[in-house]
């Protein structure tokens, strides 16, 4: 890829607030955003006043002009929102920030996400109103209205087409919860999960048990990105962006579940672009953070990023394979959205950086190539690969 961003931009600081159960944050959402940004800047060793760009996604309510004013930023040069709901824009915001820096639009860009569901309402509930029109009128009156319900339909079809067993989903959940037990930041720290507890948990919507579904949380997370050239002057060893892409396939956004290629996490057209930009292949990936709105999304994301064939899922998806302790594809090593925090997946990007820095609570030895897959099954989705100096 001649215009590749590979290695041109690096993460130099990350940070998050304390993570809370939904509705339990003591602060307003905007204050949470400010706290995470200040923490990430302190981690990078820069003054927040030197931030000149912000990138976020999923209609984050903390707008860059307000943030820049509150932080006293000297100048605002880049104010970016990746369209699309859910966590599909997590790595897309990283891509946008990196592109802006590479193109000279800004020098120091913060990627962030803040959520206070007590202040602004929940994701996991259906709309309570009298009348509904347009696309939602074709689904909501039939009791199809929450994210779990929208996505279970795709996962059922995928599992049907490829003969995938429930055990594949269970392996993902168990891996996340196991890693969260090493992570004091995790909301599920101290609350381990085993196969029996998973199997006995209630159905939310088949094939999703309770433990196949992400939490809903309050908090905020942020990352600081600068050019590779500047990154050498910071305290941390640079964590380079090797590739970052977003998008979706033909008519992925067709309404009423009418996209022709239906049983997908939406990554089939992205993954080849990601690997091309990064100059890497699936076998090069040392550690993976894959967004779990629901485990079924991880199932298809891993397949679509080329780690196994769709027909191989029952053999491939095991807790041991996904373990940071000797697994060959360590997965969601902070606990992820299931067990660390649902910060619309930006926590996964932070964890991927920490793996490159050697700072994870479930550290993978020699983690040089660190991948993030953001927001499966929505459109647009995104994914990215971070790398250490050794990968350049």
């Amino acid at each position, binding site marked *: 890829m001649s215009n590749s961003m590979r290695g041109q931009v690096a993460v130099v600081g990350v940070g998050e607030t304390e993570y809370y159960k939904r509705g339990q944050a003591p602060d307003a959402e905007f204050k949470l955003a400010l706290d995470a940004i200040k923490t990430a800047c302190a981690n990078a060793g820069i003054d927040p006043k030197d931030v000149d760009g912000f990138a976020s996604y999923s209609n984050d309510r903390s707008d860059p002009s307000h943030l820049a004013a509150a932080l006293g930023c000297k100048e605002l040069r880049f104010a970016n929102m990746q369209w699309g709901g859910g966590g599909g824009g997590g790595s897309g915001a990283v891509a946008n920030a990196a592109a802006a820096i590479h193109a000279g639009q800004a020098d120091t860009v913060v990627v962030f996400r803040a959520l206070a569901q007590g202040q602004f309402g929940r994701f*996991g*509930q*259906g*709309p*309570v*109103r*009298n*009348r*509904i*029109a*347009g*696309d*939602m*009128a*074709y*689904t*909501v*009156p*039939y*009791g*199809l*209205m*929450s994210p*779990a*319900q929208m996505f*279970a*339909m*795709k996962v*059922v*079809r995928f599992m*049907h087409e490829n003969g995938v067993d429930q055990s594949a989903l269970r392996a993902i959940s168990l891996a996340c919860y196991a890693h969260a037990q090493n992570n004091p930041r995790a909301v599920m720290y101290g609350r381990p999960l085993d196969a029996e507890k998973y199997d006995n948990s*209630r*159905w*939310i*919507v*088949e094939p999703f048990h309770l433990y196949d579904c992400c939490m809903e949380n309050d908090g905020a997370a942020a990352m600081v990105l600068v050019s590779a050239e500047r990154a050498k002057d910071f305290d941390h060893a640079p964590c380079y962006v090797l590739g970052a892409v977003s998008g979706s396939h033909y*008519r992925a956004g*067709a*309404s*009423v*579940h*009418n996209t022709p290629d*239906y*049983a997908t996490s939406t990554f089939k057209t992205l993954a080849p672009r990601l690997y091309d930009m990064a100059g890497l292949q699936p076998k090069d990936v040392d550690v993976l953070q894959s967004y779990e709105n629901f485990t079924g999304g991880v199932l298809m994301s891993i397949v679509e990023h080329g780690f196994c064939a769709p027909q191989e899922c029952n053999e491939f998806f095991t807790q041991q394979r996904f373990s940071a302790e000797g697994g060959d594809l360590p997965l969601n090593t902070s606990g992820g959205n299931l067990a660390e925090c649902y910060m619309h997946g930006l926590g996964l990007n932070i964890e991927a950086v920490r793996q490159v820095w050697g700072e994870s609570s479930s550290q993978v030895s020699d983690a040089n190539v660190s991948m993030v897959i953001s927001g499966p099954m929505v459109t647009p989705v995104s994914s990215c690969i971070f790398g250490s100096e050794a990968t350049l």
Partner: protein
Amino acid sequence: MSDYYLHEGLAQPAATDLDKPYWDGLSEGVLRVQRCNACQGWQWGAEWICHHCHSDDLGFVEVDARGVIYSYERVWHPVHPALKDQGPYIVVLVELPQAGDIRMVGNLLGDPHQEVVIGSQVSGVYEHHNEVETPFTLLQWQTD
């Protein structure tokens, strides 16, 4: 008690300028979906232009309310107050081969615990809600 598949109290569908022929059709017991007058292409849900040829000369044509179960889900956890005591229910995604394989969402009538087989043939059942201020009709499905 009513004969409706789901308890009453969910948001009621309201027609728009774009899809009024569809909702009017259901109330008459007829399924009408969008088809392009220029290229004869099908699409669902209703859109302002044809995604095949970009014409805005779109019409609604009557098709048989018959299809094939493309996917399904059994919902257990209620996310709306009206469904608090509903118990499990089945939502199906039905593909219509006679209409360009467009897909529609509905409920599968009958035992909510029934085994659902992807690929099964289903027929439409019109569920008329006439006791509300603005009557409407849902299109439900049952296996043949």
